[in-house]
């Protein structure tokens, strides 16, 4: 029996900042102090506060150590574990309040969160099935197999109001109902773990922190629709998630929670992994299934929908990782419990991956209907360096930008659609005043042009033409007619593309045009980039009256574009410098190094 438990984050963020080495040294130090029978060290999934990693929590005290360094470990072991003196200096400082230490759940980052899909992330060891079972794992599967009919399971999911967490928000229960209604000798349950939006890592964190939750839910889905086989399509770029999924599947087999005759009920279910090579289009359902079949990942027209003809032309359901992570809880706690959270049409919670210009980069889970302001300013800790909020991008390359005027809108599927963005899988990128909206639209377009599979013309050629126009605008070669032309092309691509990739690809352009048209106009008419990002429209100049002639700019210029002039300003000792615009590469190194503030860009 251990008296103390130490949880060290083993998510991708903390692992890359060396948390595995911390575990190793921690175990060594504990042994050195003779505490190995008293203190247990566990590697868990993501805690969410990735900005402060590596993270380590010591229970029963609940002390939250952030940005732990290997060199700090001997001190923590000797002071805290041996002598019981919490090393306050190394704690997450928001938990320290004068003399006392606040509970983690009372800090700004965690107080407003409600963890359902992430309930076990940062709590259990994802590589131990016993840990998952201790948190009521596989109890929901036991319940549906022994007490419920497939129809009752589907009805419960329908009643809960759960909608697909992959982005489009289709009611999950309805999907199951359609697939259950189709008779076939074989049906399939698939899990979409091909998370491809730039800046999104919700699904990865669930798989890394709580892989059994997905396996259990897939088995429940299999029972509900009458399928005996499941596939998880996960990207090969997620090595930790893949490794933990493999371990989880093996352990579930060992316990007989996957395989034949589960719980002695005669229900068989098995899950296989399929690794995706990283094509964005394979996150689209028909492409994903084509890819599982071993063919080139390309979409096909719908109907027939997967519920009728999916994988290997058999009825199939495909749900996102986060959708599955909610299922077992709904079965155990009831549809009413789930429906009590969220807004009228969007129930439950949503996980967001916070990134960009924000203090607390990381993973947050909030009830639907939480406002963007609460997420950005309270949970996210606001914008660093005193900059002003400009926009938040949701939904990745399929979504749009939400400007400051809509900060107070309660986030749910329908509200986001109404303001020209979309929920998407949950990437939330915050932008401040130094971000150029035309440049952002161009960034996402570059992504979709790269990722377009090329099967249909509107997407293959349309997005390319759109990108070319954006490129011209950022270079100051645009016209006002071009902006109108672009808008028209956007609607054309949306209306005519074969799959979701093309149908949503113009969204970043449309939403920035809707809220930041003045920035486009500034690029076209004034030939200026208001945020100072588009290099072709920038010019760096030195105010010769302010220049003290120190020469720091010239020494830092990588292009040798700065030289001293003959002019000496009144009250200055040395001659001023000047920039040769024809040589300038617009890197901004001179500006960053100028102490008297004599250099301007614009």
């Amino acid at each position, binding site marked *: 029996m*251990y008296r103390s438990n130490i949880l060290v984050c083993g998510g991708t963020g903390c692992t890359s900042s060396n948390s595995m080495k911390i575990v190793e040294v921690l175990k060594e130090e504990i042994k050195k102090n003779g505490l190995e029978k008293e203190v*247990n060290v566990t590697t868990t999934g993501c805690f969410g506060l990735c900005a402060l990693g590596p993270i380590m929590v010591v*229970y*029963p005290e609940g002390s939250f150590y952030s940005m732990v360094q290997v060199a700090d470990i001997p001190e923590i072991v000797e002071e805290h574990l041996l002598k019981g*003196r919490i090393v306050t200096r190394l704690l997450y400082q928001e938990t320290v309040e004068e003399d006392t230490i606040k509970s983690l759940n009372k800090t700004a980052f965690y107080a407003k969160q409600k963890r359902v899909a992430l309930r076990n992330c940062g709590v259990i060891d994802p590589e131990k099935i016993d840990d998952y079972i201790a948190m009521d794992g596989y109890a929901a599967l036991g319940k549906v197999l022994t007490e419920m009919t497939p129809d009752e399971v589907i009805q419960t999911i329908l009643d809960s109001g759960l909608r697909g967490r992959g982005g489009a928000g289709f009611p999950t229960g309805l999907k199951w109902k359609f697939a259950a209604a189709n008779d076939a000798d074989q049906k399939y349950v698939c899990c979409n773990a091909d998370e491809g939006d730039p800046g999104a890592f919700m699904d990865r964190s669930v798989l890394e922190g709580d892989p059994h939750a997905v396996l259990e839910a897939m088995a429940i889905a299999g029972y509900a629709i009458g399928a005996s086989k499941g596939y998880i399509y996960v990207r090969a770029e997620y090595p930790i998630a893949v490794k933990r999924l493999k371990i989880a599947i093996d352990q579930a087999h060992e316990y007989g929670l996957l395989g034949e005759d589960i719980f002695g009920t005669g229900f068989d279910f098995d899950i296989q992994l399929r690794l995706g090579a990283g094509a964005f289009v394979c996150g689209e359902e028909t492409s994903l299934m084509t890819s599982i079949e071993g063919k080139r990942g390309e979409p096909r027209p719908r109907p027939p929908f997967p519920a009728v003809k999916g994988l290997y032309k058999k009825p199939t359901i495909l749900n996102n990782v986060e959708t599955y992570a909610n299922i077992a809880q709904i079965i155990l706690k009831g549809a009413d419990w789930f429906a009590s959270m969220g807004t009228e049409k969007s129930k439950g919670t949503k996980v967001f991956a916070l990134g960009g210009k924000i203090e607390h980069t990381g993973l947050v889970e909030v009830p639907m209907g939480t406002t963007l302001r609460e997420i950005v300013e309270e949970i996210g800790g606001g914008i660093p360096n005193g900059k002003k909020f400009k926009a938040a991008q949701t939904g990745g390359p399929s979504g749009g930008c939400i400007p400051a005027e809509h900060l107070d809108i309660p986030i749910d599927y329908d509200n986001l659609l109404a303001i020209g963005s979309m929920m998407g899988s949950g990437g939330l990128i915050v932008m401040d005043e130094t971000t150029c909206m035309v440049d952002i639209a161009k960034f996402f377009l570059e992504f979709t042009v790269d990722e377009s599979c090329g099967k249909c013309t509107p997407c293959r050629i349309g997005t390319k033409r759109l990108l070319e126009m954006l490129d011209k605008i950022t270079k100051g070669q645009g016209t006002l007619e071009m902006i109108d032309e672009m808008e028209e092309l956007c609607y054309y691509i949306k209306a005519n593309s074969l799959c979701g990739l093309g149908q949503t690809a113009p969204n970043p352009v449309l939403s920035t045009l809707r809220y930041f048209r003045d920035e486009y106009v500034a690029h076209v008419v004034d030939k200026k980039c208001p945020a100072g990002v588009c290099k072709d429209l920038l010019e760096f100049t030195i105010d010769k009256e302010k220049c003290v002639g120190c020469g720091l700019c010239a020494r830092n210029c990588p292009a040798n574009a700065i030289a001293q002039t003959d002019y000496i300003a009144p009250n200055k000792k040395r001659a001023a410098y000047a920039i040769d615009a024809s040589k300038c590469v617009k890197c901004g190194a001179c500006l960053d190094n100028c102490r008297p503030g004599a250099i301007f860009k614009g």
Partner: protein
Amino acid sequence: MKSLAELQAIRDKAKANITLRKENPNAARVYVGMATCGIAAGARPVLNAFTEEIAKRGLQEDIMVTQTGCIGICQYEPVVEVEIPGEEKVTYVKMTPERVARVVNDHLVNRNVVTEFTIGAYT
């Protein structure tokens, strides 16, 4: 896995390890003084005795055992403080592993302070 009972058995066994990872604001707290003076006087066996006794009775969810620093009465070490929510804190002194079972049984379970072990009996 052929029955729900099997799952239940695994859950019960695994649960003890997990409960230590949650904060229970209503839990009774046992603080063992573990500064140099406490350790020298034998606080570590006392701490382990508490952990084991509580585990034996399956009370991990309701009682939290933790260490604390020196509280200034070094001549009475090992010192143990027991705090039950809503009740006054009780300080036990000169604790030994043998005394632990009585404190857990009489005080933490049956809510009767073991007066002869408290600091009042020694001053």
